[in-house]
């Protein structure tokens, strides 16, 4: 395509992005302000940038641990989601039978369940499994809640892979599972990536379940940790924004490097549904 460098495009993009990124700009800038400047001045950018707020967050709060917890939970959720969704997605496209049909209907039903309806019963399940106040409770809940959409995306993805490929493996004497492992799985990178991203972002963002299932401060996720900054009768805006910036940085870095794959992955997976 011809390189269209009309200045109008740039102006539009920059104006839209400036509006959209305002909360982020104010977040990072607030985190770099001194207390006096925080309340006194109206400038968007800090006059005397300081890292005091960051030092405070690292030294005096449980926040670093909570970020680690969030990373741990999100990565586990991503990993399990990718595998379980890939298995199930493959099964639903390659096998025929009444059970598989019912299963697809079941997936639609699960998508419709409001989280609040499950909250109390799920809490009881978690407690009876002895997983209350344990990160595993979040890992399995997030995975299960996300799984229908992940399976659905993988199913759409596998439908785009010609059946002849696995048929040929079957003719060669491979079992269907080996055909999946040897031939299909290596071709699924872009589909798996998009599923992984959806799962990761959900787990990274979630608040309600984390606030109910985890009680100990050092065990909770960053969402709950951040909300506590404003609930302790305190005025630590600077520290809160520093913590918020810290929470956003891993995700932001991830985006800068991964945006190409996100778009590609979704092209391959979701949109063909």
């Amino acid at each position, binding site marked *: 395509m011809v390189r269209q460098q009309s200045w109008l495009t740039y102006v539009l993009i920059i104006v839209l992005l400036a509006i959209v990124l305002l909360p982020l700009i104010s977040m990072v800038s607030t985190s770099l302000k001194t207390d006096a400047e925080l309340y006194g001045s109206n400038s968007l950018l800090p006059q005397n940038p300081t890292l005091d707020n960051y030092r405070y967050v690292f030294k005096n709060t449980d926040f670093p641990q909570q970020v680690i917890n969030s990373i741990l939970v999100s990565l586990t959720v991503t990993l399990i989601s990718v595998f379980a969704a890939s298995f199930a997605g493959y099964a639903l496209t390659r096998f025929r039978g009444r059970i598989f049909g019912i299963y697809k209907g079941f997936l639609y039903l699960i998508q419709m369940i409001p989280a609040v309806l499950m909250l109390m019963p799920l809490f009881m399940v978690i407690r009876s499994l002895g997983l209350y106040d344990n990160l595993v409770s979040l890992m399995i809940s997030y995975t299960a809640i996300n799984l229908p959409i992940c399976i659905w995306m993988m199913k759409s993805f596998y439908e785009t892979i010609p059946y002849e490929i696995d048929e040929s493996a079957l003719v060669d004497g491979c079992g269907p599972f080996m055909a999946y492992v040897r031939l299909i799985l290596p071709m699924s990178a872009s589909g798996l990536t998009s599923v992984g991203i959806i799962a990761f972002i959900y787990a990274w963002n979630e608040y309600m379940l984390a606030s109910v299932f985890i009680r100990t401060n050092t065990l909770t996720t960053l969402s709950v940790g951040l909300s506590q900054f*404003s609930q302790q009768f*305190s*005025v630590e805006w600077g520290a809160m924004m520093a913590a918020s910036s810290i929470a956003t940085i891993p995700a932001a870095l991830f985006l800068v490097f991964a945006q190409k794959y996100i778009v590609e992955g979704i092209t391959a997976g979701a949109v063909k549904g």
Partner: protein
Amino acid sequence: MDLSSIVAEWEAEGFIKNFPEGSIELHQYNGMQAGIPWIIDPRVITYRKDVFEQAGITKLPTTWDEFLDVCETIKTKTGMTPLVIPGDRDGAQVFLSMMFENGVGVTDSSVNPAFDSSGVGEVLSYVQTLYEKGYISSSTASYTDPDMDSMLLSGNAAMCYGALRTTVYKSGDPIAETLGVMPSISSNTNNSPRTLMWVNPIVAYSQTEHPEEAKVFIKWWIENMLPLFTDGGVNGYPANKGLLEDKFFNEMPYIAEAINNAVPYGTSPVWPSANLYTAWSVIEGENYLGMALQEIVTGNKDHTAIQKKYQGLIEQAFKDAE
């Protein structure tokens, strides 16, 4: 676990007068002493002494009328928002505290819902005056406790009504050093100043294998727990008044003023009823008082309708709790 034997001993020793009025009764449940008063959490009016000086206010207000006058003076002389109150769940507590200033509670003394009383109507009018004259921010409905601190420290407000601003006071901010606690006020007709004060209990579980030792420990702990605050860094204040006399608390003028100006007027949340009733958790949880406050600070002037609506909800909460 029933702890009434501790209370009996304290009654015999005369130690009982060390506890805030009604705080022992508050934790009696079905004839059992379920908890012992441990930590107090009063609602206070925090004010900036420098602003008051600047505005030429020499006499602190004692009644609602005087308080409104002070607000007017601050507003005209400094252009600041005179008072900040939160509008969320913490706001509910300020509203309740204002009800106490006027000598009314959520129930009457025989524990029947009394939100439709004329006294509550007067509180609604008082808040409406504060709101309409710009003595509290027009954005009050969306304010939370941290917003209150921001307004204070940014120099936009002269007073705030809520929990003790201990963290702010200890922050070392120049404004924080000018903070004081105003003596609790009362409405024009009610000559008895009051302010809401939570008294959080210490409890013992009936499963314990050594009930007698537990009781001895709790008694000793309540009588001697000073290091918890002086060394433990706990941001709270002991219910046992004797400990409040320690110089640790009195070295900090803001805290000392709270102890002298507000704590003596501290009133239990369920006043004028003596014990915590089941419906209270619904009233507090559903934030009925906060919602009534929000109605006023979003411009609803129909007091009768507001009182009727929340009286109905409170009555329902009592019915549900039966």
